[in-house]
């Protein structure tokens, strides 16, 4: 069964409903896989849903459509989120999600653009997505193609030097067709970002690098939509949305827990979690 989601959705309740659905897909597929990244898939879910279903132009029947907006999941370990959104958007069957990480599956542990329609570039080695997004943005501009590029990074991920190389590039080339989102959930693998390697002040850093910076509650759909609209309206510089999020958001016993970065829910946890999401 291929589920198509037609048109752009601006209704907050509808988008929140899709986000719930996406969270349930993420949890189901992770449990079925027995491994994978729970926390960071859940924390970025609301932002990803808003980008795909309220903003992006795309056609799942023609993944290479020239006019499509592009989405790059730079934090590739949140693959379950990307796959769920793509399935919901109609790129492939929802049932395929349950093959995540299995031997013959197109759904690799980290996104692979050669096997999954809708995945623009393979990711998984952190810090690389924003450079690719810049390249796409430059190419679109050369073609006078009004399509836009979205890119989600983690907050631990921006410790990578390449992110700041790319930050310079986007500002230098005035890539206002780019909207980056930092999924600022405060946690990475070895602990709180603040303790592992301080990235604060994040807002000031991006401002210093020449970006338009918007800070929001990354779980408030209204704020997300407003930020995405503002990003589109700002000309002459790229925009980054610093989305304050909670790792594991939506499942109380995963929220803020560093150990659920790379742990899949057990069967029991899954049942409890699905009930909680409702």
């Amino acid at each position, binding site marked *: 069964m291929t589920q198509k989601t037609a048109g752009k959705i601006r209704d907050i309740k509808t988008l929140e409903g899709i986000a719930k659905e996406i969270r349930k897909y993420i949890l189901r597929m992770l449990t079925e896989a027995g491994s994978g990244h729970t926390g960071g898939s859940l924390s970025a879910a609301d932002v990803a849903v808003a980008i795909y279903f309220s903003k992006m132009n795309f056609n799942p029947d023609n993944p290479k459509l020239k006019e499509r907006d*592009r989405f790059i999941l730079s934090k590739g370990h949140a693959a379950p989120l990307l796959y769920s959104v793509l399935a919901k958007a109609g790129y492939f069957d929802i049932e395929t999600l349950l093959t995540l990480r299995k031997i013959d599956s197109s759904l690799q542990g980290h996104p*692979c*653009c*050669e096997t999954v329609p809708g995945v*623009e*570039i*393979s*990711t*998984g*080695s952190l*810090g*690389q*997505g*924003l*450079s*690719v*997004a*810049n*390249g*796409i*943005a*430059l*190419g*679109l501009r*050369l*073609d006078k*193609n009004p399509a836009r590029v979205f890119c989600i990074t983690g907050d631990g991920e921006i410790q990578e*030097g*390449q992110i700041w*190389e*790319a930050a*310079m*590039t986007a500002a*230098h*080339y005035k890539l206002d067709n780019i909207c980056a989102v930092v999924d600022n959930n405060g946690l990475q693998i070895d602990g709180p970002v603040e303790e592992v390697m301080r990235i604060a002040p994040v807002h000031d850093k991006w401002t210093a690098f020449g970006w338009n910076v918007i800070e929001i509650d990354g779980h408030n759909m209204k704020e997300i939509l407003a930020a995405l609209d503002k990003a589109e309206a700002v000309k002459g510089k790229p925009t980054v949305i610093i989305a304050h999020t909670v790792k594991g958001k939506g499942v109380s016993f995963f929220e803020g827990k560093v150990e659920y970065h790379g742990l899949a829910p057990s069967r029991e946890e899954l049942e409890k979690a699905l009930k909680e999401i409702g």
Partner: protein
Amino acid sequence: MGERTQESGVRSQKSEEKTNALPSKATRDAYGETLLELGKKRNDIVVLDADLSGSTKTVKFAKAFPERFFNLGVSEQDMVGTAAGLAITGKVPFASTFAIFETGRAWDQIRLVVCYSNTNVKLVATHGGITVGEDGASHQALEDIALMRALPNMTVIVPADAIETASVINVIANFTGPVYVRLGRAKVPQIMPVDYKFEIGRAHVFSQGKDVNIIAAGIMVDTALKASAMLKNEGIDAGVINMSTIKPLDEKAVLNAAKNSRLIITAEEHSIIGGLGGAVCEFLSENYPIPVKRIGIKDTFGCSGSPDELLKLYELTPEAIAETAREGLRK
């Protein structure tokens, strides 16, 4: 195959030189010129550099087509990622910097967003090998071919001279998929036939040797030709093969060379580990084991000096190849 040598009778070094009326020229210069011509013909060609456009010669393209040239500053990782993004939009990006920075600094980027993602990115690096000269070890890429050859989906090309470089650049502009081309800094003799047409994966056989065949790449093809002429004066029949595509290797040419002679010598301006020598040994040991001697940098770093001094110091000379042949054939 072997047009030049067949006609000129191959017997002496002089006959090699007679056909070679063109002046020495750096492969990077041929790159800059060819890129400029390509840019005039095709507006899908875009060029990226990392603050070395004067040295890599992409500056010619940059001046003619500023809107299609992207200087990323000193940030090779970002350059490779940006190139991949441009490729996704249907552009044909040529990304250039020095070989060591292109392949070493950005290896994981090349692996993930170029090779694994199979994007149509052309990585054309200059300043490969020891003949970088005075800048010393930090700037001399002696491991780049090994690094690129290990990557699935990657095509690896090392042109022998300016003539071959021009042909290579035109060919890869029409080829879809990741390519690494290694060029040099120094002027080198033009040794390929003027009407030569490069084909990916096809070696150019100057001559088949009955005693030994020298499989060479890059500047070492000329060195091998000179060694072959020296050996012929001593009655040793030494063939020379220009293996400009290191990956995919022209296995047929290697097999032929092995079947027709008693010894194979590989010659490259690269570590003896993992480059052309490695590729030839891997193939022959599994398919037609005969003795192989590898000429190259012997698992060490380079140092400062003039290109000629360095070639002597690291034994990348016609004399060294000839001596290796004599020794190998004595056994």
